[in-house]
């Protein structure tokens, strides 16, 4: 299965008062294993709605959505929870770490909802995920003792810990300064090179430049889908320093 994500004529309609708002008007696309896709669009373009559906937080009004070959459209709430738990890693703009909870415990959180993972394995996997994002020396720190960039790294480790088929990042650099943004993008690039499939929602052109493919949404439809020769975030970082 090379297509991690596949949508067929995805539609989402919201009922606002007596008016129907069409957030998505038929989305056809697929993401293959190993791709680093940026989803761009102005606010109101439907990119949040698309991300919610891709993240199995919401169900489409019509159309089909497959993640890792599994059809999602007709699943129950509990089944969607399980898909989120096993297949998806979320990274949010505002990190969403639990306060007064150590980095390690924050990272362990998704595995708590997976009864097939023992306490010992949970701890080991969380440690490995934190090492992967370069926070091996910050495991016992609370979020308020970490910088914004470090907090986002903890959040990325949390998204990685369940070994998801895809990482979904929602404006993951939106709260960070340019330098830290580039550092985070560099981390995403490393993860992508290691084989992770990543979908990255952003509205910043320079961030999208670090990805291998860019999808542009406008008024609930894909208007542009281009493959890119990605810029290296490390090079951009060095340029910033000089």
């Amino acid at each position, binding site marked *: 299965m090379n297509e991690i994500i596949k949508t067929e004529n995805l539609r989402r309609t919201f009922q606002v008062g007596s008016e129907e708002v069409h957030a998505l008007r038929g989305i056809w696309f697929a993401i293959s294993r190993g791709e680093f896709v940026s989803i761009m669009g102005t606010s109101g373009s439907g990119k949040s709605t698309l991300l*919610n559906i891709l993240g199995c937080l919401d169900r489409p009004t019509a159309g089909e959505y497959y993640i890792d070959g599994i059809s999602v459209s007709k699943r129950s709430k509990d089944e969607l*929870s399980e898909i989120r738990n096993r297949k998806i890693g979320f990274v949010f703009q505002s990190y969403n770490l639990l306060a007064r909870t150590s980095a390690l415990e924050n990272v362990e*959180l998704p595995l708590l909802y997976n009864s097939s993972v023992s306490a010992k394995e949970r701890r080991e996997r969380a440690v490995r995920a934190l090492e992967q994002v370069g926070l091996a020396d910050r495991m016992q720190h609370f979020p308020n003792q970490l910088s914004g960039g470090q907090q986002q790294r903890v959040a990325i480790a949390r998204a990685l810990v369940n070994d998801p088929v895809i990482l979904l990042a929602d404006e993951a650099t939106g709260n960070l300064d340019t330098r830290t943004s580039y550092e985070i993008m560099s981390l995403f690039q490393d993860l992508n090179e290691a084989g992770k499939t990543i979908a990255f929602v952003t509205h910043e052109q320079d961030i999208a430049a670090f990805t291998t493919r860019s999808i542009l949404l406008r008024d609930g439809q894909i208007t542009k889908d281009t493959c890119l020769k990605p810029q290296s975030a490390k090079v951009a970082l060095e340029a910033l320093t000089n």
Partner: protein
Amino acid sequence: MNIINLIKLAYRALIRNKTRAFLTALGIIIGISSVIAMVSLGQSSQRSINDQISSMGTNLITVMRSNQRSGGVNVGSANVQTLTEKDVDAITARAKYVSAASPFVQASGQLVNGANNAPGSIQGGNTQYLGIRKYEIAEGANFTDQDIRSAAKVCLVGKTVITNLFPNGEDPVGKIIRFNKIPIKIIGVLKSKGQNQMGMDQDDVVIMPYSTIQKRILAITYIHQIVVSATSETTANLATDEIESILRNTHKLKAGQEDDFQVRTQQEMLEMMNSVTGFLTALLAAIASISLIVGGIGIMNIMYVTVTERTKEIGLRMSIGARNRDIMWQFLCESIILSLIGGIFGILLGLLISYIASALLNWPFSISVPAVALSFVVCAATGIFFGWYPAKKAASLDPINALRYE
């Protein structure tokens, strides 16, 4: 999520807000402790009453004169003179379930020994009287049938009377005291029995042959009551029936005519007292449980606040794979633990209160295991009942909105 993780999670959430958790639990502590204290004090008082009634003998039966009507006018029982020693003889001779019967007459007046005096009540009976009323002789001897026949001026006295009349501690046996100017010789001292269930001092007593009181003090030929001892507790009711038919016979009452006497068993007394104290206990417990409900509402209130405060956390947990029931259990667990902690401290506090109160009131202290067990169940139920809606609210949040909640 397994139960251990749920408990850890709840524990941590509560520790994070120690003061708030404590104040919320305080409502439950007060509620449970007052229920426990009330029930346990009620039972203590009931037990103390039972003990005392039993110490008087639960096979005790009393025959009293009943109210009489004269031409439709209730003339009360004071002037009724229908009970006589012949009734006692008939009961002793004919009743199968009676082990002993004694006439009972009483008089009151001033007891005098030289310069010391005290108001006293004198009870008269036959030689069986001590056994029926469960009195025992500490020193000296009971009066005899000969004393009864001759209306001898002898008496047995209780500890309180001795303290009042012989303050210097001399041996009272053989001494002469005066009752309404009549000299009476003390021939024995009774063992102490303490107070009875009405709070009356059972040691403030002088016991004499009933004939002496009849002839030398009151100048009457009838007797006030008959006290009877049934062969056992279980035969008390049978003995009551026998006594009724014997007395109807000796009093020559025709069928349809009202009894001119009434027969009371100690058992009835016990039941009456129990129903009174039982009602009081239930009433107090009901009032106390109102505070438990208020405490439960406190939990509900705080859980609502907690859910609102942690909306974002709920959204995050859902997005990383928590099912609705995981979220539900997380909050339910928190409220159950909160109320159980309140319950444990409430039970301890309640027992402490009832222990101190029992000690002050001189009641036997009793831990009511069912009340404690019930309180624990009530606590858990309070946690579930009042935690349910907030937890349900948390579980039904939409993850997308919850994540965006500020």
